């Protein structure tokens, strides 16, 4: 046994590379003595190598290297996915684009400015929103409004199309006049603040100039247009069917109140009140013929009142009765508009 211990020690020394020549010859003569000795030698060597292996593995910082691999993966993803896809797309597109450019070049003697794509922005009933156009013009849109405008203004004029009600704060630029197309007439401005109400269902177009100067251009039958200049605080009311207009000077608060979240009536007719109440509260408002003929005017300011509260307040100042019919659920699970019936008391 002691001899075995000595031999094992020799194997350890050999494994660490510290064996001298005399020890080596002792070890080798033992190894060749029998096949059993050789396999025992191999086993001990293997045991030693396994323990070394374990030590080496424990030294590796797996957690840190996992972070390294994640970094490598991210780089690969960015370069592979993006760059190669881009390269491919670019390679495929380069010839068609080249041909197309050449074609464009030879086929457009006038070199017209290529019109930018038209965009449109819409607000649902009962919702207001604000957008900024590419020239810096701010537009605040009242409920149920649609504004169509180019993504970029790049022609001689700036032109947008309005259906519904909006407040414009036009960025000043005299060289590129700003036009609001209203269907049958347009407003021309260069750098002003004004409000336009142009709802499809309304009889009249209202335009109120808060600041600066605007002109209204009304199309005539003989394809000419009539031009009307407005001064500050002018309100123009244009009857769409009769093509007649009136201009009056007013403080305009009932036309601008909606911007601050106020619904203001000032001696307004039942027609006007019904239209605006309906849009404000997203309800359908009907009234009887007697009331229409009565010539009542309504004055009130609503801020956060509900429809019920607003109607109650109106009924205090004028002899009216009202009835609210709640909306019913439709097949597509949405609800139909509430209906309000107003009658003369």
């Amino acid at each position, binding site marked *: 046994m002691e001899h075995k211990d000595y031999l094992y020690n020799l194997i350890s020394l050999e494994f660490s590379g510290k064996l001298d020549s005399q020890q080596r010859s002792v070890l080798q003569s033992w190894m060749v003595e029998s096949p059993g000795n050789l396999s025992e030698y191999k086993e001990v060597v293997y045991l030693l*190598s396994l323990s070394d292996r374990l030590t080496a593995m424990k030294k590796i910082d797996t957690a840190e290297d*996992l972070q390294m691999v994640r970094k490598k993966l991210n780089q690969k993803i960015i370069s592979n996915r993006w760059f190669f896809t881009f390269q491919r797309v670019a390679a495929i597109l380069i010839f068609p684009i080249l041909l197309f450019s050449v074609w464009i070049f030879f086929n457009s003697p006038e070199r017209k400015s290529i019109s930018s794509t038209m965009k449109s922005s819409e607000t649902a009933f009962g919702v207001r929103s604000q957008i900024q156009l590419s020239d810096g013009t701010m537009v605040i849109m009242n409920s149920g409004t649609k504004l169509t405008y180019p993504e970029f203004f790049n022609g001689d004029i700036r032109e947008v199309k309005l259906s519904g009600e909006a407040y414009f704060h036009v960025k000043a630029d005299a060289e590129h006049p700003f036009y609001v197309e209203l269907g049958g007439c347009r407003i021309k401005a260069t750098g002003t603040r004004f409000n336009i109400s142009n709802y499809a269902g309304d009889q009249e177009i209202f335009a109120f100039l808060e600041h600066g100067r605007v002109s209204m251009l009304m199309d005539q039958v003989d394809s000419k247009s009539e031009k009307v200049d407005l001064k500050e605080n002018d309100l123009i009311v244009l009857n769409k069917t009769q093509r007649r207009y009136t201009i009056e000077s007013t403080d305009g608060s009932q036309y601008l109140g909606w911007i601050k979240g106020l619904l203001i009536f000032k001696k307004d007719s039942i027609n006007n009140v019904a239209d605006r109440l309906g849009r404000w509260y997203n309800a359908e408002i009907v009234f009887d013929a007697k009331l229409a003929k009565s010539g009542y005017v309504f004055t009130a300011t609503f801020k956060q009142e509900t429809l019920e509260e607003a109607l109650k307040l109106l009924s205090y100042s004028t002899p009216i009765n009202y009835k609210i019919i709640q909306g019913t659920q439709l097949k597509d699970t949405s609800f139909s508009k509430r209906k309000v019936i107003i009658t003369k008391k």
Partner: protein
Amino acid sequence: MNNDNQTKELFLYEEMKRGKEYAFDFFFNYYYPGLCVYAQNMISIPEQEARDLVQDVFVKFWNDREKIVVRYSIRSYLFVSVKNRCFDFLRKRGKEAKNLEITNEHDITDETFDTYVLSELEALFTNSLKKLPDRCYEVFEMSRLQGLKNKEIAVRLNISEKTVENQVTKALHILKKELKDYLPLLALFDLFHFLR
């Protein structure tokens, strides 16, 4: 590797194919240290280069996860990939690798790789090391697992160098007996790494 592990790894591999990173992390944590040592045993390169090499294998493992066809096991896929990388590495260096021809996957069984799996090798040792007397364990641990020199151990434990030698020898005797079921088979497969 037992069947349970095999099933678990195949499940995790499916998870990885679906883009689950945790599955990738599992394979990395489980096999990375062993693969690094394996690469170092295959070709003599500095530790840092071995780590880079194995990391590249894992990058490919993730990127090609949908393309890879695992014929035997994830374990053999990873080890054989590292092995092939090692040969590529040698080829690039212009070294002749005559005696290190790429073996078929058939030639290498999972048993060979088992001793390169940190947790499994550790488990094998831990059980056997429990059988060592305290002082014997202490000396063997310092000598073989911490890699201290006999002289250093002697100073630390205040014993003679001769005693250190004796304790290591004693530990080898006991461990050889404890691991005798594994050693002969493993030795046959693995010895060439050492003798190289």
